[in-house]
């Protein structure tokens, strides 16, 4: 039953995305940036999903350190991995947009640099997990590292407010706005990305459960 719900949610997310690509393609050009601007419809929802995943990873890591319950550890690794995939897409789509609008693939401004540091930190989190064999030690070290890594998340989000950056100012919380039909498509993409993220996290959580079952079976085999 749980699997069927996941498949249905995944298909709904993909259908929304596919329908939205068609709808976004029909929207008129933006006056300054032309059609390249439409990358924002994927770039921003990816980052929103990635930052949501980072917040969830922080909560799960704190949850593990407080309760020592391994379900929190599984949740932390699941959301971090999915969040890292979204962060990768956010960085790549942003870079492609920058190449067309700025004429460069990359610049070391505060937003881009903090975003890259965020990617490196969460990639480091996953590498750290691979490096430690003992489960309790692995979960504890990883939780502490995840809390440390979260320090970068507000820097990524607010860097464009705190410093003068080449990255554009936010459209929605700096007085700017979209035409209403653009906002609708943007929000649908946001919903689809979050839905897709939830499905991926649920699948990844199931894999962590399977990994725990394997560990337990191995211990039983070793004891016999």
């Amino acid at each position: 039953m749980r699997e069927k719900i996941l498949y249905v949610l995944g298909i709904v997310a993909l259908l929304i995305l596919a329908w939205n690509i068609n709808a976004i393609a029909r929207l008129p050009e933006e006056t300054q940036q032309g059609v390249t601007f439409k990358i924002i419809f994927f770039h921003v929802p990816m980052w929103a999903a990635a930052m949501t995943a980072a917040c969830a990873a922080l909560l799960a890591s704190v949850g593990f350190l407080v309760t020592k319950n391994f379900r929190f550890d599984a949740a932390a690794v699941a959301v971090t991995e999915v969040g890292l995939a979204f962060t990768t897409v956010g960085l790549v789509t942003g870079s492609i947009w920058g190449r067309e609008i700025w004429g460069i693939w990359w610049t070391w401004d505060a937003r881009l640099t903090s975003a890259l540091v965020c990617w490196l930190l969460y990639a480091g989190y996953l590498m750290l997990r691979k490096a430690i064999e003992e489960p309790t030690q692995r979960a504890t070290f990883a939780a502490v590292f995840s809390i440390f890594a979260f320090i970068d998340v507000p820097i990524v989000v607010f860097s464009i407010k705190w410093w003068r950056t080449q990255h554009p100012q936010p459209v929605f919380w700096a007085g700017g706005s979209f035409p209403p039909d653009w906002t609708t498509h943007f929000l649908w993409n946001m919903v689809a990305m979050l839905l897709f993220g939830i499905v991926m996290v649920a699948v990844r959580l199931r894999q962590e459960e399977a990994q725990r079952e394997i560990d337990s079976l191995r211990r039983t085999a070793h004891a016999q």
Partner: protein
Amino acid sequence: MNVISLVAQLVSDAERLQHQYEFLSYGLTAAWVILVIYVLMMVARERKLKREIASLRAMLEERR
């Protein structure tokens, strides 16, 4: 003269639009390719875990 400049303007607009669509398609393709690769990695990991559980269970059954 006016017709020539109008045609030149239209050609330049068409070229600009084509260039921009090219970059928009790169962005969309990159986004989908990365997500599809990640989904395929998840599917491969799922299969590997299922195989491992099945083989461990079979081994434990044999020992009993």
